[in-house]
């Protein structure tokens, strides 16, 4: 792999950019791999990367039915934060956030991590108490957050209307090192690094069946033929239920549509990320100047990557009260992704009833921020059979009543 650097840009400029190689190879599948990862989203690619980097396992294929990063990884609104209430969540999300800090250097790929700060607005007394509690929990967990009053919110976000008629801003939970990153670049950076380690990233290769010998996995059937493997990681977000069914077990997951939209580009007006969980909306400004907006999920099971218009309307209506100046903005694009929701709104990183099959799913509306931490933990789980970061997120927590209940702490949108 040719390293990207200022020197490389100068060198290529001098020869009409004729020397940039492919960022990753496009191989045909081999007959057998030590490990196969299904799904080349951020979580699947990060799992493969840390299998190689941390455990030296590089005879790995990542199989993707479409194109890499074309699932939720390329559809999300890129908010990164780790201000969760429960210890298990804070540990894995903070691990991820801290890995984002050095990801561009680590991957030699600019993922444009922008720790501009994230505010979660408190707009009811219940939320004030909730976020004060989270700030205390974060202090104990070693996650840097702070509960701030409305004046400080106004100072950080001059365009906000803090005394709206229905939901005035009473305060907020402020995480100064939260922020955003370029979603595609995260997938591309991991893909390039995996390919460089000799792993095969095989796009347009749908897994259509899982082959077992009794209780053990022995391989997969794909649209490019059968491929054998010793270990199989299912990392397919909204399609987790479909893949689990092929492997012969069930998951506590439902797949719903989540939408987002962006406005026409405007001059810089907001340099932090603002989330308003009571009214179900959040917003940040992209480097291009577009206001990036998201809200809650649609209500019913859906695999179409399309959502209903009235949800977009609800989100925008909510945000206009808080940000009156956006009322005249034209919206440019709107899209949807299929998110995998669990009963306690926390992810699943786990062994399964089938020997050799591991699942990483249930990230729902909030897994972009978790990509490096999730890949780190999943790789350890697949390599060693146990990972401290993943332990609490095992599948048997549902049978044991050991929930990691973030739905109350985090609001709907993570």
């Amino acid at each position, binding site marked *: 792999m040719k390293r990207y650097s200022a020197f490389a840009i100068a060198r290529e400029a001098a020869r009409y950019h004729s020397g940039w190689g492919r960022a990753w190879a496009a191989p045909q599948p081999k007959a057998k791999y030590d490990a196969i990862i299904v799904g080349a989203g951020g979580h699947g690619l990060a799992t493969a990367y840390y299998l190689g980097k941390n455990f030296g396992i590089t005879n790995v294929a990542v199989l993707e039915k479409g194109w890499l990063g074309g699932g939720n990884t390329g559809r999300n609104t890129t908010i990164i934060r780790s201000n969760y209430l429960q210890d298990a969540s804070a540990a894995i999300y903070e691990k991820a956030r801290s890995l984002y800090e050095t990801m561009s250097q680590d991957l030699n790929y600019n993922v444009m991590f922008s720790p501009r700060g994230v505010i979660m607005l408190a707009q009811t007394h219940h939320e004030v108490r909730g976020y004060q509690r989270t700030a205390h929990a974060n202090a104990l967990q070693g996650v840097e957050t702070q509960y701030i009053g409305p004046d400080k919110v106004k100072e950080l976000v001059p365009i906000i209307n803090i005394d709206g008629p229905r939901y005035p801003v009473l305060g907020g939970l402020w995480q100064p090192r939260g922020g955003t990153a370029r979603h595609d670049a995260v997938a591309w950076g991991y893909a390039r690094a995996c390919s460089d380690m000799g792993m095969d990233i095989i796009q347009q290769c749908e897994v259509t069946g899982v082959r077992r010998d009794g209780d053990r996995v022995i391989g997969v059937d794909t649209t490019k033929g059968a491929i054998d493997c010793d270990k199989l990681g299912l990392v397919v977000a909204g399609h987790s239920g479909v893949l689990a069914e092929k492997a012969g077990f069930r998951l506590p*997951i*439902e797949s719903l549509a989540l939408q987002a939209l962006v406005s026409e580009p405007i001059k810089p007006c907001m340099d932090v990320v603002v989330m308003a969980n009571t009214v179900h909306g959040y917003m940040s400004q992209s480097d291009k100047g577009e206001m990036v907006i998201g809200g809650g999920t649609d209500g019913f*099971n859906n695999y*179409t990557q399309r959502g209903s*218009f009235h949800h977009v309307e609800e989100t925008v209506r909510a945000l206009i009260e808080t940000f009156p100046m956006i009322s005249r903005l034209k919206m440019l694009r709107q899209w949807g992704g299929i998110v995998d929701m669990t009963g306690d709104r926390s992810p699943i990183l786990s062994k399964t009833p089938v020997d050799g099959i591991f699942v990483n799913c249930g990230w729902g509306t909030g897994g972009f921020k978790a990509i490096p931490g999730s890949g780190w933990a999943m790789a350890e789980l697949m390599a060693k059979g146990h990972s401290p970061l993943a332990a609490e997120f095992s599948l048997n927590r*549902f049978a044991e009543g050991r929930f990691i209940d973030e739905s109350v702490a985090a609001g709907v949108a993570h």
Partner: protein
Amino acid sequence: MLTLQCPYCGVQAEETELHAGGEAHLKRFGPGASDEDFEAYLFMRENPKGVHFERWRHVNGCGKWFHAARCTMTLEVFGTYSAQTSEPPQSIRAAISAKRPGWQWKDFA
């Protein structure tokens, strides 16, 4: 936008009049049940890419709960029916079979 006909009041209701209520025909387990059955009842969900049965409430209308059969891949609605039943009626099953021969959902086909 999804429209479902409320089987009680006959209104063609669009989505904002309705509230989605999740998987239909759940078999309930309570005290004395095995841990597995109880877990499955509380958390495991059918999540098919295709034919799906679910509960809906005509919340901004007559207020009643009903059932719908729908395709989660195309959003096509096969029909709606009363909540006063533990399995989909024959007419709904036939309507699905006409469009998705060989379909199966839980124990129903």
